[in-house]
């Protein structure tokens, strides 16, 4: 029996998310879960005529839960790396996110390449691709893995590490919260974001690919990106 049949029979699309931050997936001022990824899966469920069921997991639990069939797809900032793609099926990327670096205002660095120096410590989030980026693009610096993005930002702000690496959107949020942070010039890497599902759910993967093609074609995706990403329009509704 195919996964799509099961979703239709159940009448539920079960989605696993994590709370990685604005504007991809977060809890807004009203206590509602929202963000770009959430809007996307909401649209998917609506177009399938099924109910959307969202389950929130800690990063440690997200992959095991998907593999144990607790839900159908992961809608989080999960990058389809070659290793992961060997174990999961990813949809086409629906979005590319820039990875950048930030530091404290009193630090002498101006562009991210300055960080690639022996003795410089750079913080990122555990198990995330930011750490991979630090190790790959700043081999001379020391990578420090924090449990969460905010912890790494706090560490930069309080001088525990020299700089941090995160997504453009996260860094934007950190710079408004800490008044002594600055963004370093240059984009370190671009991360594609995609939905993931279990290996055997082949039809669901194709369905998602097709769906992304469709909403690209009819520009619904562009409108969403304009709202969530290219402008700050979302802030007055949710912040």
């Amino acid at each position, binding site marked *: 029996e195919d996964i799509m049949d099961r979703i239709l029979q159940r009448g539920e699309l079960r989605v696993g998310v994590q709370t990685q931050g604005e504007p991809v997936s*977060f*809890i807004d001022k009203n206590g509602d879960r929202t963000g770009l990824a959430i809007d996307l899966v909401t649209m998917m469920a609506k177009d399938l005529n099924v109910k959307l069921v969202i389950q929130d*997991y*800690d990063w*440690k639990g997200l992959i095991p*839960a998907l593999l144990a069939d607790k839900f159908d797809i992961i809608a989080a900032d999960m990058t389809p790396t070659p290793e992961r793609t060997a174990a999961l099926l990813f949809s086409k990327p629906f979005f590319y996110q820039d990875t950048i670096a930030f530091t404290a205002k009193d630090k002498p660095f101006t562009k991210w390449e300055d960080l690639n120096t022996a003795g410089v410590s750079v913080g990122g989030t555990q198990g995330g691709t930011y750490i991979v980026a630090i190790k790959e693009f700043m081999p001379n610096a020391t990578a420090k893995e924090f449990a969460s993005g905010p912890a790494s*930002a706090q560490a930069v702000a*309080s001088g525990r590490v020299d700089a941090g690496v995160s997504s453009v959107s996260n860094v934007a949020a*950190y710079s408004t*919260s800490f008044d002594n942070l600055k963004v370093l010039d240059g984009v370190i890497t671009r991360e594609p974001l995609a939905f993931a599902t279990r290996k055997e759910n082949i039809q669901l993967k194709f369905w998602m690919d097709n769906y992304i093609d469709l909403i690209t074609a009819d520009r619904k995706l562009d409108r969403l990106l304009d709202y969530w990403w290219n402008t700050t329009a979302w802030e007055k509704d949710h912040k």
Partner: protein
Amino acid sequence: MIGQFLDFLGADLAHYWKIAAAVMPALLKGFVETLKLALVGILWGSFLGGTLGILRGQHIRVATPLIGAYLHLLRGTPFLVQLYVIYFVLPNTGYSWLQWDSQTAAFVSLGIYTSSYVTEIVSGAIRAIPRGQWEGAFALGFNRLKTLRLIILPQSIGLILPALGGVYVTLIKATSIVSVVGIVELMRQADISIVRFPGDILYIYFLAGALYFAFCFPVLMIVGRLEERSKNGRMVRA
């Protein structure tokens, strides 16, 4: 950190007030969830641990080593992994009755985890009661169960309660791990709130800490009182 506190005393009171107002509802919701988890863990863990502890306190040939293995296995592995096995691995065994939702899995694993500590405490306390108390009761015609219920347990309770207090507050650490199976308790609510206000990470953890304190402190106080009572009162031994 100290700087933050100085700010707190100074100009930024309004800022902290705003953050507290924004995150407290979520934290309180998480706190209720944490209390629920702790309570279930305490009840199940005490019941299961009490039963196993009583059995282990008796020197029964097969039960004692078996319970010992149970206890060491649970104490030797992290709660995170126990939870993982119960929620993610057991369902793959194919028995439908092992397919628990995250709430049930969390309750079951917290209960089992707590029981491993309670077992040790109860069996230790029972063994600490002088043999003469058993013999005195046997000689009067008490059977094993009656002796336990009327003589041994009432006397060991003074040893059990203080130690239980320690376990109950340690259990709190475990409740913060169940977010792995998708339960949003206090620590998870704090983490989610921090994503909204990344600049106030310490302050938000501090607020969460205050809520934990509101659970732990009374538990330890009550236990301390009970300990004092069992010392001062009638239980003075020669």
